[in-house]
């Protein structure tokens, strides 16, 4: 049975309509991690014909964030419906027999995804400054809504809850040290140096403080927008409980600024922090943002090393993974900047 037929069988089962059908199935290959497809589903529900554009995300065989577990992102997206802009989550299937790997289906959300890349001398992905400012404000509001959400009242048992902010920091170091150690192709002095610094700085973080749901990959490139409105925050693979400063540092990281001084190619870093505070996000802890800024650069390296390893072990034929082998060189400069070894080019 081909993929389209398998998907139709699935749709018939979850909708209870044996005549359910799908059309316009398309594979989207932009992502580096989850496989993404879109299609139109037709089914009868309570006597009425439903015709709905849907998006399917399937666990990949190998990739940047392996090993994969879809349950946390599904739990988070379910818990956050109505709290902030997330895609409507319809169905989650863990059984690999259905489509070869676990997957979930979301309602299609209109909008475009601005990417955090700009070629030298080229126009910004969002050229109009007022639109960028308004979009950054809407993003900050979404982020505050996420961070203020009372996760203790939600069904989020799958998340490991740190006892406080120091433990949250140490848990994130452990997570990314794990990725690093499983995937590094040899000794990497810059990363060793960065981990030693992270350990030192984590010990200085106070334990008390608000633990929040942290998106984990909150940045330009991971949201859909229409004009100046955030339509949906996407890519919840890295969601966990932790320090809200982590999302802030990541959103403002050097990684998503191109050769500009604009966080996520939207607004200056200080302005994004200001928008977050204005939206009710509370005070910014500069030391913790700096800690997570360094952690972010290390995390990006660990993610790249995971992709390189999947390629090196021939678990994927996607040559895009191989380019990280030289891009890690560029990342070392970002780490060096976060470590204070080179002056910050723009802040």
């Amino acid at each position, binding site marked *: 049975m081909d993929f389209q037929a398998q998907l139709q069988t699935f749709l018939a089962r979850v909708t209870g309509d044996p005549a359910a059908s799908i059309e316009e199935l398309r594979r989207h290959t932009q992502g580096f991690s989850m496989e993404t497809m879109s299609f139109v589903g037709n089914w009868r529900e309570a006597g009425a014909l439903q015709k709905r554009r849907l998006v399917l995300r399937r666990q990949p065989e190998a990739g940047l964030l392996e090993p994969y577990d879809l349950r946390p992102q599904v739990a988070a997206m379910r818990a956050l419906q109505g709290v902030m802009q997330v895609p409507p989550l319809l169905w989650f299937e863990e059984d690999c027999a259905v489509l070869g790997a676990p997957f979930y289906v979301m309602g299609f959300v209109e909008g475009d995804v601005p*990417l955090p*890349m700009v070629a030298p001398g080229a126009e910004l992905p969002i050229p109009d400054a007022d639109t960028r400012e308004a979009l950054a404000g809407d993003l900050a509001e979404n982020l505050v809504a996420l961070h203020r959400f009372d996760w203790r009242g939600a069904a989020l048992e799958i998340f490991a809850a740190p006892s406080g902010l120091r433990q949250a920091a140490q848990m994130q170091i452990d997570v990314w040290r794990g990725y690093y150690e499983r995937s590094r192709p040899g000794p990497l002095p810059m990363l060793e140096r960065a981990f030693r610094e992270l350990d030192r700085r984590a010990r200085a973080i106070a334990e008390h403080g608000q633990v929040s749901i942290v998106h984990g990959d909150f940045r330009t490139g991971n949201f859909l927008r229409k004009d100046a409105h955030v339509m949906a925050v996407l890519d919840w693979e890295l969601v966990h409980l932790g320090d809200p400063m982590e999302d802030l540092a990541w959103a403002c990281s050097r990684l998503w600024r191109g050769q500009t001084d604009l966080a996520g190619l939207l607004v200056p870093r200080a302005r994004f922090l200001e928008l977050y505070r204005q939206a009710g996000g509370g005070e910014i802890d500069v030391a913790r943002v700096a800690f997570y800024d360094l952690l972010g650069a290390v995390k990006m390296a660990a993610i790249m090393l995971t992709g390189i390893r999947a390629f090196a072990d021939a678990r994927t034929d996607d040559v895009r993974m191989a380019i990280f082998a030289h891009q890690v060189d560029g990342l070392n400069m970002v780490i060096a900047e976060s470590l204070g070894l*080179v002056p910050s080019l723009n802040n």
Partner: protein
Amino acid sequence: MLDLDRIFSGMIRVLEDRVLPELTSGYARGQLHAVLELLENLQGRTVWGGPLLEGEAAMLDSLAAEAVAELGDPQDALAVRLRSFVADPPSLLTDRVQTGRALVCDLVAGGHADAGALAAMVDAYLTNDAVMKALGLKTSRLAEISQG
């Protein structure tokens, strides 16, 4: 370092399996076959090298020599490895760099480079190497790669 053979075989595979079938003109097909034959024969005839790696090897050499002088106890296992690296470095460039990097990692992990002269030396190596290699990078095609 990522195995060079694997990079070549990955490029060959995607060019043969995904790119070649979409070509319509005989000229482009002939040229792509020639690229494939070139890649197949570069595999096994090329190794990592060039000025960036040579530069890093030279920096690691001096760092190791200075670290030998800085480390107090000459019986310390790390000091012994450093002396052996300085006296008889691996002949293959990639082995020399890998061994040197491993020594730096162990200096850092062992706390020897937390402060003082060794910390400054390690940071100087890390900074210079990062700057040189970043300057050597070609403009990334990540935008085109993502958009197809």
